[in-house]
């Protein structure tokens, strides 16, 4: 893309994109590590994930301030305007993704008898899918690639399918052995959190598509 005549404008936009990329990287790592901590019962790692979420919150504030500054000082138009608006919204959504990772990490110590509990082996695969969506959508953002954004949106179906399957699995455990209800309920929340991460990655993908093309992707009622 051609540079702006006013160089400082380019610097502002580059900085904004850098902040979003940094947030995305942190959120992706948080999702991985939260699940890792969950599966291995690593409370220390869980606490780290919780503590690091503050950094995401701080970055979101920084994005907000910078976006407001750009709008006030540069009066961006066309793709620049869409880029700034998208960044503002993406920052909010990525911060939410971080919150879900934090919520998963907080439950590490509440899981009992983690061995021999089958759903615990399914969750990492599901989390992997969701984290990949987060990763891909930020790649799409960095490359301003609406096609990749559409692929991310399509991938959400897989995460949703996983959630349904884990949900049924956990319910059957609870029915068979009421002693597992407490842990199974916790894991249900974890699965739900991962499912929401997928939804939010989808939201980001829609904004990436909007920033790149000026249109939201066609509605898919799945």
């Amino acid at each position, binding site marked *: 893309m051609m540079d*702006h005549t006013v160089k400082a404008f380019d610097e502002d936009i580059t900085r904004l994109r850098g902040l979003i990329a940094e947030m995305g990287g942190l959120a992706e790592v948080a999702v991985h590590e939260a699940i890792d901590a969950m599966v291995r019962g690593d409370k220390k790692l869980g606490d780290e994930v919780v503590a690091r979420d503050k950094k995401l919150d701080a970055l979101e504030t920084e994005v907000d301030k910078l976006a407001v500054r750009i709008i006030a000082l540069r009066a961006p138009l*066309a793709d620049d305007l869409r880029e700034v608006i998208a960044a503002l919204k993406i920052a909010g959504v990525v911060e939410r993704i971080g919150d879900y990772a934090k919520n998963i990490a907080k439950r590490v110590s509440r899981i009992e008898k983690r061995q021999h509990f089958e759903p615990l082996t399914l969750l990492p695969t599901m989390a992997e899918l969701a984290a990949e969506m987060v990763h891909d959508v930020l790649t799409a953002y960095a490359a301003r690639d609406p096609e990749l954004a559409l692929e991310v949106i399509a991938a959400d179906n897989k995460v949703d399918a996983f959630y349904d399957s884990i949900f049924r699995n956990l319910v059957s455990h609870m029915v068979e052995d009421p002693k597992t209800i407490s842990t199974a309920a916790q894991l249900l929340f974890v699965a739900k959190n991962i499912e929401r991460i997928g939804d939010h990655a989808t939201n980001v993908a829609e904004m990436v598509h909007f920033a790149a093309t000026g249109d939201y992707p066609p509605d898919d009622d799945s």
Partner: protein
Amino acid sequence: MVTVRHENLPATDAKMRTTDVNVYYGDKQAIDSVSIDIPSQYVTAFIGPSGCGKSTFLRSLNRMNDTIPSARVEGTIELEGDDIYRSGMDVVQLRARVGMVFQKPNPFPKSIYDNIAYGPKIHGLAEGKDALDAIVEKSLTRAGLWNEVKDRLDESGTALSGGQQQRLCIARAIAVDPEVILMDEPCSALDPIATAKIEELIDELTGRYAIVIVTHSMQQAARVSQRTAFFHLGKMVEYGATEDIFTNPIEERTKDYITGRYG
């Protein structure tokens, strides 16, 4: 190269219609095959870098270019279906129907009252003093200037502030009951408050007159117009609803210009 036209535009009444208009200054072609409808109910903004031809094209809409000996216009420009370049066209009458406001306020060195009354008098629009008084009051009121000048109508128009002078010029254009008002960078010599007053005035006048504005301020075009045409190197590159041009232009050159990447 043809103009990229946004397809989502609702049908409008064309107050003016230009078809394949070329304008030359001597050998130099300043406007290349511009076709556009000027809707009666909207403000149309012409934007583009300096030298793109937007002012030349604006001035061809009321034959202001006739005053430049080397200027030549090809194609047709119609006002309500009537070719304004046809032989026998009364140019003075045309300029009453298609009024113009310039970059620098240019009130006559006469009283505020006479600035407004002059046009209606020579066009025979008012019979008697009372009718003329009414036109002066109505025009100044519509231009948002009445309350500021009603007690000093005898003072010279040139004694007003720049913003007031510009509103006086708009009132003067309005006084002869035009159908179209052309504005060539009407705020470029004004401070932000005076600019805001002119923009508010343009808003008030929208619907009553077809308005065409040439402006270098993208934000101004975005604020006051409903249709925007982007000119570049004498061609009309893109035409569409203002909000689409400024949020999602189709042509790369339009985008580069309005986002500050051009050149």
